[in-house]
Every structure is written in structure tokens, then in C-alpha cells.
């Protein structure tokens, strides 16, 4: 759908526009939202490949029964740090990168409200990542308790757990500062005429996500602080040996953990809600209901944490409450899925790479949603708890959900960000290899879970061998196909052909309609003049 359309005006940037300073200091001291967004995205990319390498180590070990490469303790460290790196190092920073790039542009603001705090939020990630990675090299090896850091195992391990706890504190502080910045920017720096209900849906989803982050990150920080005092300062919050209650940690952790799941998927909804209308060449169906559904999902996310712990022995009434509350989330999520389908219905659709990944998201995320409903049922969950069915479920949500939307977003906005168009053929090859590899990797894990294979084990009974082999083959196809993505992005930035001002004719947010390609270093130093018609804000 590449068009020769050029943006009709270039207002929004000054004639005296100046570029960035040269060298490393540009990145070290930058307060520019575009630079910081770029750094977040590259950091997320590096951590994605780091976590991906661990994932391939896990799948290599599980290729056949028996111990191949790793001892069980190291295998547990791999699963633990893979989870932490992917959640806190890859998915979340990638979405913050998108927020940095797009929120000011889509609301017509010059920059984020607190650019210096923005710089600090990013650079805090580096020591946190070093602590996480460095924990592999200390005596006793990296934390091996799973990303959930459950006691009592986590109380018994070595210094690596302290490094992990410190890393989680730092990451939490970074996320909270980033969220304060995003909320403040959206609420205070919108261009005249950009009312809340005219904002692009990506901005809405990030506004709600930022509130979620501020509400739950301190809860995680509190939980890991208590772990730290249990380990070193003689308290017994969670240590049964001292009269503490390990189950209490589960409650506190998952009060954070379930909203965290939505922190990782609401911005994905926002990205997909930008891409589908652009390639269907129709406005988003049911804009207001999308906003209300996003808010409903966020509110409901606070009352469903117990579905992660149906097997700990809660009262039946508690189990029932969490079961029904969890099922209730299917309603606003269904509203979103049907609105996306209605957006595409009778649209003039074309299937460039961003659209392929967005449609892939829609199909595969829905499968993850359905398996979530299966797990929401208490009697079923008691059987499937801690099996590979759960692993399959959350990878359908987080890989083909969150990650696919990130990839779709990069392909969608890369022409605007870099001024160059990516290689469409390579992008489509990347998509098909990703979809095929992903499904070969994770769909058989449903079968393994239903057959009773537990998660977080380096060895397994021979009857699980065949599907594990297929799962490992799929994982390697998926993993190596991501190298195509990195190659495509780098070659686009370095030598891609020039992109048009409005590369996608159906895109209608301000960065496409009001700014040239590539964008000047500073944008909207004069607030844009917005016109409102039946298609939204222009």
C-alpha cells in the first residue's frame, strides 16, 4: 500500500530546527523523546535476543528425554532469568520505547513532560540488566526459583537472589518514573483540540497502562523488600521456619503479577488498534467502546490474582470468586476482538508486513485468550496447574500477543522513524517463518500439558518425547527467523529506499498527517492546528 502521497504540510517544526549533538554524549545526556525511545527499543531488542538464547538453551535441553547439556539447577536458572529478562527487559521496555516515540507525536506535544527524568528512567535499566545477567556468574548461579521468586526456595539461595531483588527494585523505580512521565504528558501537554476522547487508541492504552504500573509496581517492590528482610534481617514474613507464611507471598506477588500481564498486553492492543484501521482503510470500529473496554480490563485485573493459585488451598468461595471474575474479563476482551474484526469487515484491506503481524496477533492472541478461559475454571486448573498447558497459554498471549504487536509496530512506524522503507519481501518471509515456527513450538505444548508434563523440569518421561522434539524444532525456527527482523531493520536504517511522508495511506494520527519523513529532531514546537471531521482528528 505504499503511496506517493506526501504530507500536505510540514507545520509542527520550526525553521531553526537543529539536530542532535554528535557522539556518545548524544545518547548519554539526551532529553529528546525520540532518542530515548530509540534507546529503549534497542535495549529491548538486545534483551530479547539474550532471553531468546536462554529459551533456545531450554528447548535444546528438552529436545529429547534425559539430561543433554545442563544440570537441573542451571536449567532452573535459565527458566527463571529467561522469564525475568523477557518480562522486565524486553517486552516492557519495548512498549515504553513506543510510548516515548509516539505519545508526544500523537497528542501534538513537543516532548515528554519531564525529559530529564525520562533519561534517568532509561539509564536505570542498564545496572538492572547487568545485575540480572551478572547473577549467572556468582557462586551458586543465578536465581532458580522461577520468575515469580517464590519462597521458601528463594530464601535459601545465594547472593544471586539479592542481585535479582535489587534489579527488580531498580526496574520498578524506572517503570514508575516512566509512568509518571507518560500520565503527566498525556494529561497536560495535549495540543489544543486534542480532547481525551479524540486521542489515538495507542495513547489511551498507555494512559491506562501507566496507571496500572504506578498501582502495582510498589506492591512488587514491597514483596521483594520483604524477601530481602527475610533473607538478611531476621524477619519471617514468608519463612515458615520462623512462623511466616509462604502463601502470603503468592497473594502479594500475584496482586502485582496479574495486572502486570495486562501491562504487557494493553499497549499491544493500542498498537494493533492503530495498524488494523490503517490497512483496512476504515476508521476503528467502536472507538469509545474500545476505550471503555481497556479501562474495564484494567479494573478487573485487580480482582483476579487468585486464579494463579487455585491449588494452594483457598476456601471454595475464594476459588469461585476468582474463577467468575476471571471469566468476566472475556467480556471486554471480546468487545475488542469483535471491534477489530468489524474494523476489517468490508475494508479495502492490503496485507503488508505490519498488517500481517497485526492479523497474526488477532488470531493467535485469541487462542491464548481461550486457553486462559480454560485455565480460569477451577476444576480444570487444578488438573492443569504447573503443566505445559500453562506455558503454552502464556506464550500465546505474550509472544504472539505482545511480541507480535511490537514487531508489527516496528514495521509500521520504521519508515516514519528512520525515513527509509524496509524490505517488504524480507518482512513477509519473517512473518511466515515466525508464525509457523511459533505454532510448531507452542501448540504441541497444549498436548504435553494435557498429558500431564510438568513445567520447569530438564528431563521428562519418554511418552512426552515426540511433541517436545517438535516444540524444540519450532522454537529454533522461530528464534533464528528473528535474525531476519534485525537484519531488515538495520539495513533499512542504513540503506533503505526513501520512505514517503505518509507511507500508509490509511494512517491518520498526527505523526503521519502533520510531520515530514524523516521527522526533524524536534517536533511540534508550535502546537499543531487540528481539524475535526467524521474520521477523527487531522
Amino acid at each position, binding site marked *: 500500500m505504499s503511496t506517493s502521497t506526501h504530507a500536505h504540510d510540514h507545520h509542527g517544526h520550526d525553521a531553526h530546527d537543529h539536530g542532535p549533538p554528535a557522539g556518545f554524549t548524544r545518547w548519554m545526556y539526551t532529553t529528546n523523546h525520540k532518542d530515548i525511545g530509540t534507546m529503549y527499543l534497542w535495549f529491548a531488542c538486545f534483551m530479547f535476543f539474550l532471553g531468546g538464547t536462554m529459551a533456545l538453551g531450554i528447548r535444546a535441553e528438552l529436545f529429547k528425554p534425559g539430561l543433554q547439556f545442563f544440570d537441573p539447577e542451571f536449567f532452573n536458572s535459565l527458566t527463571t532469568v529467561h522469564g525475568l529478562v523477557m518480562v522486565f527487559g524486553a517486552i516492557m521496555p519495548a512498549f515504553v520505547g513506543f510510548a516515548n516515540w509516539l505519545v508526544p507525536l500523537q497528542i501534538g506535544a513537543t*516532548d515528554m*513532560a*519531564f525529559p*530529564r527524568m525520562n533519561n534517568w528512567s532509561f539509564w536505570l535499566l542498564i545496572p538492572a540488566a547487568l545485575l540480572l545477567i551478572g547473577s549467572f556468574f556468582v557462586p551458586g548461579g543465578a536465581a532458580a526459583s522461577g520468575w515469580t521468586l517464590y519462597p521458601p526456595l528463594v530464601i535459601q539461595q545465594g547472593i544471586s537472589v539479592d542481585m535479582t531483588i535489587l534489579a527488580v527494585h531498580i526496574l520498578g523505580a524506572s517503570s514508575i518514573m516512566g509512568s*509518571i512521565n507518560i500520565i503527566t504528558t498525556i494529561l497536560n501537554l495535549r495540543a489544543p483540540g486534542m480532547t481525551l476522547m479524540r486521542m489515538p487508541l495507542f495513547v489511551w492504552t498507555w494512559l491506562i497502562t501507566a496507571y496500572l504500573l504506578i498501582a502495582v509496581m510498589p506492591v512488587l517492590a*514491597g514483596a521483594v523488600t520483604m524477601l530481602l528482610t527475610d533473607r538478611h534481617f531476621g*524477619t519471617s514474613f514468608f519463612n515458615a521456619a520462623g512462623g*511466616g507464611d509462604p502463601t*502470603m507471598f503468592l497473594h502479594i506477588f500475584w496482586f502485582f503479577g496479574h495486572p502486570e500481564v495486562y501491562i504487557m498486553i494493553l499497549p499491544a492492543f493500542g498498537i494493533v488498534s492503530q495498524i488494523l484501521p490503517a490497512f483496512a482503510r476504515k476508521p476503528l470500529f467502536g472507538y469509545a467502546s474500545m476505550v471503555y473496554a481497556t479501562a474495564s480490563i484494567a479494573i478487573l485485573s485487580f480482582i483476579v490474582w487468585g486464579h494463579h493459585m487455585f491449588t494452594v488451598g483457598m476456601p471454595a468461595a475464594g476459588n469461585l470468586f476468582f474463577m467468575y471474575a476471571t471469566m468476566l474479563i472475556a467480556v471486554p476482551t471480546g468487545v475488542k476482538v469483535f471491534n477489530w474484526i468489524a474494523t476489517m469487515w468490508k475494508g479495502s484491506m492490503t496485507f503488508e508486513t505490519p498488517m500481517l503481524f497485526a492479523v497474526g496477533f488477532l488470531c493467535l492472541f485469541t487462542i491464548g485468550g481461550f486457553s486462559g478461559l480454560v485455565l480460569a475454571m477451577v476444576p480444570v486448573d487444578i488438573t492443569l496447574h504447573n503443566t505445559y498447558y500453562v506455558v503454552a497459554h502464556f506464550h500465546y498471549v505474550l509472544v504472539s500477543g505482545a511480541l507480535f504487536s511490537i514487531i508489527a509496530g516496528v514495521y509500521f512506524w520504521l519508515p516514519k522513524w528512520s525515513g527509509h522503507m524496509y524490505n517488504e519481501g524480507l518482512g513477509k518471509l519473517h512473518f511466515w517463518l515466525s508464525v509457523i515456527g511459533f505454532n510448531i513450538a507452542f501448540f504441541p505444548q497444549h498436548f504435553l500439558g494435557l498429558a500431564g508434563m510438568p513445567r520447569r523440569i530438564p528431563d521428562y518421561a519418554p511418552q512426552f518425547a515426540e511433541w517436545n522434539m517438535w516444540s524444540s524444532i519450532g522454537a529454533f525456527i522461530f528464534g533464528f527467523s528473528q535474525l531476519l527482523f534485525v537484519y531488515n531493520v538495520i539495513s533499512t536504517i542504513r540503506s533503505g529506499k526513501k520512505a514517503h511522508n505518509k507511507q500508509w495511506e490509511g494512517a491518520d494520527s498526527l505523526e503521519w498527517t502533520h510531520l515530514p519523513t524523516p521527522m526533524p529532531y524536534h517536533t511540534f*514546537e508550535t502546537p499543531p492546528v487540528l481539524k475535526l471531521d467524521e474520521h477523527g482528528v487531522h
Partner: protein
Amino acid sequence: MAFTEKAHTTRAQRKRALLSAFALGAMALGIYAVVIVKFFVYK
């Protein structure tokens, strides 16, 4: 362009932004404090 350089924002916007930031920061610290204090008392 840094917000604090005051080039492209009004005084009212800056005031509101600072108030929002302090309120949100206080909310985060408050939640952290409640979690810790509640469980110190509980235990």
C-alpha cells in the same frame, strides 16, 4: 526540548504537570509504604 526549559509550555501547564507528578509519585510511595507497614503489623 526539555520541559523545564520553559520554551514551549505555559506556566499553568508546568504547574499542573508538577502537581500531577508529585501526586502520582506520592501514590506509588504510599502503596509501597502500606504494603510494608501492613505486613509488619500483621506479623
